[in-house]
């Protein structure tokens, strides 16, 4: 009997333990977290730091499950995705313009200002209404004026901005919406909610380095949030949600570096690292040492034995790796302050294969011309480029003057999609697929005319000018080494953002500068001046004329003196005529 009971109890205990183990393993497979910081010293002495925080959440919104348990994934974004049936969401806030000629290609490109593009699920019936609500909700989450996104600056590209996540093959561009706000300012009030989305916040791990006073005192600052479905495993039969938060910053040698070619974590961020975020399964720092194989250009301290190679942006780069999850990285002082000290200042000039420029020519406030230049610096390969141009309705494009010239000859695009603007309703949309010949400059020009706005449509500071959003150039740039076509979990984050379908080229997106054009602006002090002048003219001119025409003159006796008046009174009493 006792043996029975013992066995019974043992069985119960085993069952209990197995249940615990099963639930624990279920908890740990609900998602994982990867943190990464890549530091790339640039040729001009500046330094480029790129943070990426990735949360993967194994749940399938697309099957319509109701979710209530949020662990690593932020609840505010999870509720937004499920309420608005979002398939992909990409939002970025950028201060400054990325100089491709001096800094090369960024890991995650972004245009100046705010940019938002969203792919909705097939189940959405009214995409425009959902888009309007989504922009309002996001403006509250990120403390930005995204509620200014309306039909006058929303586009529906027909070929650009294909989804970056997985799908089942069909992409109907009816469910895509894209908008930019080039005027949007980025400041601490945008960084604060961005930091709150991280599971550790800004209290542990790499996010302690994100101090606004240093981040905004830089040449370029960009923070973005990307949500997309990714493959859960190699078979890719089910999807999981990936949230990537990226922050790119370029510190200037002279303003932040005090003109000394010596960078350290403390100098860049005014903080050092003491521990990794406990919720992150991997937390690493990569320093690009490709140009420094024998330590002849710069010296890296503390030294690290870990070295890794990765193919990124068409090139095989070597990185020194610091693993923050290992206690040995922090050494005896329990803090990590990376120092990069430069020894010599020679180096190869960067020759990016693709970069672009855009500017406005012309004089006066009536007409002008927009020039977009695309440079292909590859010596013998040509590659296709998709140019997306969006111009607000108040710059009326003369599309018959559109010219595309490469190397002095006309270059006919193989695909053109043009949607003309409607006044106060939608902007111009021009998409062209061009083949850039090798070692050439392609120039796209189009003339425009400026419109006169209604006086209520001007901003409070109209003499600043009006912004035209950046052009987007998406292309498949030929790469020098074979690209990785299988996106796996083991790849570092900076090389796995854009999916690769073929080995010989990689996908790159380049943004041009936004344009600032002056519209004919009325003098807003004019009504006050006009009222003053008109009233003066009316009072002086009309008043005098009226008096002249209608005034009649009468003769009047002068007033007699006092003695005479008394004498008149006495004479009246006597009945005698007065004096």
């Amino acid at each position, binding site marked *: 009997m006792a043996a029975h009971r013992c066995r019974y109890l043992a069985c119960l205990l085993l069952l209990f333990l197995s249940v615990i183990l099963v639930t624990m393993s279920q908890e740990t497979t609900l998602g994982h977290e990867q943190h990464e910081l890549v530091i790339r010293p640039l040729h001009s002495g500046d330094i480029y730091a790129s943070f990426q925080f990735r949360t993967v959440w194994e749940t399938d919104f697309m099957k319509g499950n109701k979710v209530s348990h949020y662990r690593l994934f932020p609840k505010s974004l999870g509720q937004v995705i499920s309420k608005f049936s979002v398939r992909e969401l990409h939002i970025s806030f950028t201060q400054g313009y990325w100089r491709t000629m001096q800094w090369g290609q960024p890991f995650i490109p972004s245009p100046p200002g705010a940019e938002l593009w969203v792919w909705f699920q097939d189940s959405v019936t009214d995409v425009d209404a959902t888009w309007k609500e989504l922009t309002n909700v996001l403006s509250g989450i990120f403390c930005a*004026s995204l509620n200014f996104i309306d039909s006058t600056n929303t586009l529906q590209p027909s070929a650009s901005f294909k989804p970056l996540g997985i*799908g089942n093959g069909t992409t109907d561009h009816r469910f895509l919406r894209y908008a930019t706000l080039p005027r949007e300012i980025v400041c*601490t*009030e945008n960084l604060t909610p961005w930091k709150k989305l991280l599971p550790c916040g800004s209290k542990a791990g790499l996010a302690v380095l994100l101090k606004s006073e240093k981040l905004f*005192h830089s040449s370029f600052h960009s923070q973005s949030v990307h949500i997309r479905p990714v493959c859960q495993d190699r078979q890719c039969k089910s999807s999981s949600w990936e949230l990537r938060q990226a922050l790119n910053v370029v510190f200037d040698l002279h303003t932040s570096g005090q003109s000394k070619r010596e960078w350290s974590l403390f100098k860049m961020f005014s903080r050092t690292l003491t521990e990794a975020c406990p919720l992150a399964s991997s937390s690493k720092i990569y320093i690009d040492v490709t140009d420094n194989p024998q330590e002849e250009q710069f010296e890296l301290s503390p030294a690290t034995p870990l070295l890794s190679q990765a193919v990124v942006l068409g090139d095989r780069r070597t990185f020194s790796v610091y693993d923050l999850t290992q206690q040995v990285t922090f050494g005896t002082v329990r803090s990590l302050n990376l120092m990069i000290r430069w020894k010599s200042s020679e180096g190869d000039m960067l020759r990016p294969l693709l970069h672009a420029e855009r500017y406005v020519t012309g004089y006066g406030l009536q007409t002008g011309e927009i020039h977009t230049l695309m440079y292909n610096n590859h010596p013998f390969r040509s590659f296709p480029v998709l140019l997306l141009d969006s111009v607000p309705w108040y710059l009326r494009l003369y599309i018959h003057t559109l010219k595309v010239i490469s190397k002095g000859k006309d270059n006919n695009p193989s695909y053109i999609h043009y949607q003309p603007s409607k006044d106060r309703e939608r902007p111009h949309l021009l998409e062209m697929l061009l083949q850039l010949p090798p070692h050439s400059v392609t120039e796209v020009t189009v003339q425009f005319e400026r419109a006169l706005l209604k006086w209520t449509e001007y901003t409070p500071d109209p003499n600043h000018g009006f912004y035209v959003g950046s052009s987007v150039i998406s292309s498949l740039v030929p790469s020098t080494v074979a690209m990785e076509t299988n996106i796996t979990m083991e790849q570092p984050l900076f090389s796995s953002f854009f999916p690769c379908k073929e080995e010989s080229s990689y996908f790159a997106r380049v943004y041009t500068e936004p344009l600032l054009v002056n519209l004919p602006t009325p003098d807003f002090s004019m009504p006050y001046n006009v009222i003053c002048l008109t009233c003066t003219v009316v009072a002086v001119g009309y008043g005098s004329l009226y008096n002249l025409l209608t005034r009649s003159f009468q003769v009047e006796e002068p007033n007699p003196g006092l003695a005479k008046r008394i004498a008149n009174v006495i004479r009246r009493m006597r009945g005698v005529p007065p004096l």
Partner: protein
Amino acid sequence: MKILTLLSVFGPYLFTDSVNIENSAGQFFSSGHTNNWAVLVCTSRFWFNYRHVANTLSVYRSVKRLGIPDSHIVLMLADDMACNHRNPKPATVFSHKNMELNVYGDDVEVDYRGYEVTVENFLRVLTGRLPPSTPRSKRLLSDDRSNILIYLTGHGGNGFLKFQDSEEISNVELADAFEQMWQKRRYNELLFIIDTCQGASMYERFYSPNIMALASSQVGEDSLSHQPDLAIGVHLMDRYTFYLLEFLEDIHPSSKTNMNDLFKVCPRSLCVSTPGHRTDLFLRNPESVLITDFFGSVRKVEITTEVLNLTHPIQRVEGSPVNGESHREVYSYVDQLPVSEIIHQKPKQKDWHPPDGFILGLWTLILLVFFKTYGIKHLKHIF
């Protein structure tokens, strides 16, 4: 003897009763609010109006320090000074020269910024008549037990306040907005502070109960700025708010300072203008009103021994792996630039246009019918 025993029995009760009456009387005169809100507005644009943003941010900082959370603060800044390209120290807004105090801080949340700060948006926030898609952080979700602090700063005149150099709000509009708030029971008590030139004119027209108002200058007087900083190049703060900030820095969540001390902030000798206040619409005596009634957020906690049974927790539905086999299609990444697909893509035409030549044919038909009925002799009148 019996009377004595009776008195001795009932005496203590009578005594405690009188103490209780005093307590309850005291509580009757203390504020009946349960939550605090703050609406802080800076209405000026352009870099030389740096001081107005610094004014608003210093009140924001004090209010946040004393306990009001970001979700209960609606902060409206008409221009960005911290990340302005003319700011030599980005991401900072200083209130004292020599850059002693950065009022911008590290965790500021601005709800309305830039062009969003308009008279219409300000009145909509006060009255609660916002479009349905407005997020929560941009709404003033106050109820009839909320104490609201409203702070306005900018350029003003006799009876108006200028918004963004392009429009004005008048004192009559403001008084009507407050009356609408009273009728909708959107506040319990309201403290209105304004720091502009001739600020007292803005509270002259109030007529709703439970409003206390303070202004930095009387009608006919200008509010002056405090001190410039030579490194930044602009005036950093206005005098009234500078001394208000100094006064508020000494307040902590449990301090018992009352409104009479607030009325004494910035006398004429320091401020050059004469600060004014208006308390005739307020039901309580200003002496019994604590500063923290408006600037802080005192949460009243009620301890109860009742037990509440929770319902079953929500069952997490596992992605049914058993019967989902038919939906198991292999997903793949989409080609980012499918050149051949794009070239053969036909763009969909959404607008319907009549077929080519239709308009020309229609006019030809009309002319033909016209000439048939009226004859060819009318041709010379047309051409």
